[in-house]
């Protein structure tokens, strides 16, 4: 087994990435999986640059990241039959780079992109769907436009009466060409585009970008600035967990929690707004700096606001656990077993609810988490109830983390300068992998520079990329009417997947 060992966002020369024969490549992945490592990213370089497929694997036990590659020669034998975690990545590779993947059990488009080098789009959603035949079997198609105010995607259910035998999820409607464009544009535009990669995870994604740029430019971030963006990351987690717990209550018709949480979510977003002026943290994260300072006055204002929010959120969410009719709907609905969660490489609260104790803040700490360790709640059943519980515990812990971080801010530290030309100073021919823990789970950004120090390859993996298939598994043998509830308990990103 040979691989390049990296630490989170610490770059190394690209030439140190070993290129292996296909069989060795496959064996290396399998062996690392046996050691409970995870496949965080599997991607092909654009053909004209590099005819290799790169694997990025994460070791949650020793904070290491392993990178290795294999040549593909336009065809590649699928790893999926033996390595289920590779299935979605291989579909992406086949579609984006026109590499023929042989022996893949269910090879089809995931984004409905044009063929490589062409600009004519195929009809989105037009593909073969898994079909169940038999008397009384019926099919339910939903989307791309959904009934609520939500991003587009297509869901197709194979049902026997009310029971869902299989759910197939086809996305791609949100594909905006982000990864294609990122290496071609200037830093000032690139960071703005990454802010919208998944707009509700602006801080999670921009932090990953900033970590890579800081590593490659050898421009470390100050303690205060790291604290500010970690505070924003926790606020992002709090806002979304609050909103989703409310929406889950709404999906089963429990209106008190639904109504209160909708508002409280806004209060948390407004707290981010107090720091940077934008409720979604746009402009808050900048490599090696932060344009925004939390001075003593703002610090106090945020603390006061957190006290009010915490009392409100507790009052609203405690109702969930105190109401038997809510628990009856949450418990044992939409379960994903630990075995399946590991096999498909689930991340974030969905994985933790199924008993997989992974959290990048704990296993590969970055920014303020190098000193402040979060409590990582782990469930067992992997059902809606457990996902709700895990999110509730994380939400409560985030209040503490934000308070601890606010207490660590040093008012006497000089305000750092924003370096707008930082991307002119990147080390050439390097690779860097940055991991952060967004509110949906692990975010993985891989950055490779060329000989002139320009970004050559930029690969983003949003947690939703791992987890959409988890939602499909959760729906097996469930009532179709429980779909909204199951969906909200994951609340995955369409645009983060489609990029």
């Amino acid at each position, binding site marked *: 087994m040979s691989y390049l060992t990296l630490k989170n966002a610490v770059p190394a020369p690209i030439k140190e990435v070993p290129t292996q024969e296909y069989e060795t490549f496959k064996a290396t992945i399998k062996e690392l999986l046996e050691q409970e490592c995870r496949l965080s990213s599997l991607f092909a370089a654009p053909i004209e640059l590099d005819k290799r497929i790169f694997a990025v694997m994460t070791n949650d036990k020793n904070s290491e990241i392993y990178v290795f590659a294999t040549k593909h020669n336009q065809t590649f034998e699928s790893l999926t039959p033996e390595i289920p975690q590779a299935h979605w990545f291989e579909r992406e590779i086949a579609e984006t780079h026109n590499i023929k993947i042989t022996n893949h059990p269910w090879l089809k488009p995931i984004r409905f992109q044009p063929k490589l080098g062409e600009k004519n789009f195929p009809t989105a959603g037009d593909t073969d769907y898994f079909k169940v035949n038999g008397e009384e079997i019926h099919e339910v198609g939903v989307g791309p436009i959904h009934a609520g105010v939500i991003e587009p995607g297509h869901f197709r259910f194979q049902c026997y009466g009310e029971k869902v035998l299989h759910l197939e999820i086809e996305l791609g*409607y*949100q594909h905006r060409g982000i990864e294609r464009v990122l290496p071609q544009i200037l830093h000032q535009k690139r960071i703005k585009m990454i802010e919208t990669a998944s*707009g509700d995870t602006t801080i999670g994604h921009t932090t990953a970008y900033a970590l890579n740029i800081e590593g490659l430019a050898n421009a470390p971030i100050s303690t205060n600035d790291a604290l500010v963006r970690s505070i924003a990351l926790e606020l992002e987690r709090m806002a979304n967990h609050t909103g989703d717990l409310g929406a889950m209550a709404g999906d089963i018709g429990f209106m008190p929690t639904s109504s209160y949480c909708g*508002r409280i979510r806004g209060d948390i977003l407004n707290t981010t*707004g107090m720091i940077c002026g*934008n*409720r*979604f943290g746009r402009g808050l994260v900048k490599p090696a700096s932060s344009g925004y300072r939390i001075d003593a006055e703002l610090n106090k204002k945020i603390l006061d606001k957190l006290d009010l929010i915490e009392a409100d959120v507790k009052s609203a969410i405690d109702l969930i656990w105190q109401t038997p009719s809510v628990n009856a709907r949450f418990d044992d609905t939409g379960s994903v077993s630990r075995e399946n969660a590991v096999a498909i490489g689930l991340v974030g609260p969905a994985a933790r609810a199924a008993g997989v104790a992974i959290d990048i803040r704990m296993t590969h700490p970055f920014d303020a988490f190098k000193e402040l360790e979060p409590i990582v709640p782990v469930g067992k059943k992997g059902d809606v109830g457990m996902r709700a519980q895990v999110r509730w515990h994380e939400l409560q812990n985030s209040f503490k983390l934000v308070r601890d971080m606010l207490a660590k801010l040093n008012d006497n530290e000089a305000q750092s300068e924003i370096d707008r030309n930082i991307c002119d100073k990147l080390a050439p021919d390097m690779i860097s992998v940055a991991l952060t823990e967004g509110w949906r789970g692990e975010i993985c950004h891989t950055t490779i520079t060329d000989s002139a120090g320009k970004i050559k390859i930029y690969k983003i993996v949003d947690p939703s990329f791992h987890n959409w298939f988890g939602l499909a598994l959760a729906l097996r043998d469930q009532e179709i009417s429980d779909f909204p509830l199951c969906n909200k308990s994951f609340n995955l*990103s369409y645009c983060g997947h489609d990029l």
Partner: protein
Amino acid sequence: MLKVIKARIHQKNRTYPFPQKMPIMDPRYAGRPLIKPAKCRADCKKCVELCPTQAISKNNDKITIDLGHCIFCRDCEVMCPSSVISFSKEFSMGANSLSSLKVTDESYAKLEEMGAELKRLFGRSLKLRQVSAGGCNACEADCNVLTTPTFDMARFGITFVASPRHADGLLVTGPVTQNMKQALVKAYKALPAPAIVIATGACAISGGIFRDNFETNNGIGDLIPVDLYVPGCPPNPWTILDAMLRFMGAHK
């Protein structure tokens, strides 16, 4: 039951008395930009070069910010050596046309209410179908939040409905990906006439940060007619509500 009532008392009535009372925006909030043309140096184009969405142009020594492109990142304000550009706290930014989105000084065009017949039909009841066509879930979230108690847009007769057939109009977010183009046009055609279209956010108005990516269109304007533009990235919820109410003639 008693616990639910206790929580209800704790949570209080939180609906903000808008538009009788104006919300107070955060000190760092970036609202409508103001330009002081007299201060601008003839030889400087720093803001034009910096702007990530090409929202700023300079012709005959005159700066124009197009709010349809602007993502309110404030880079121009920070980098301008002569303090020509500043972002105010004014959140009311809805516009009837692309031309009234262009800011050249400290004045701005007033948002006109919809025509008399439309007002008779929609002035007190407006049902909207929201279509996300490449939106990043920030605009969508700030539309969703309008249904929460703070904003409670239903008290003005505005609600989101589940089908275009039940709707008086579309509220569109996102630059319109190629993969959503057909669905968007179909949803528009499914609206019973007359109908209105609201373009919400820089992406829906101009393509925003994704402008000229071949995977997206440059907003919805080339595909369906637009009646109301709401700038921002994403627009603050008050900006969206304010624009809708002014357009309905419910707020002057």
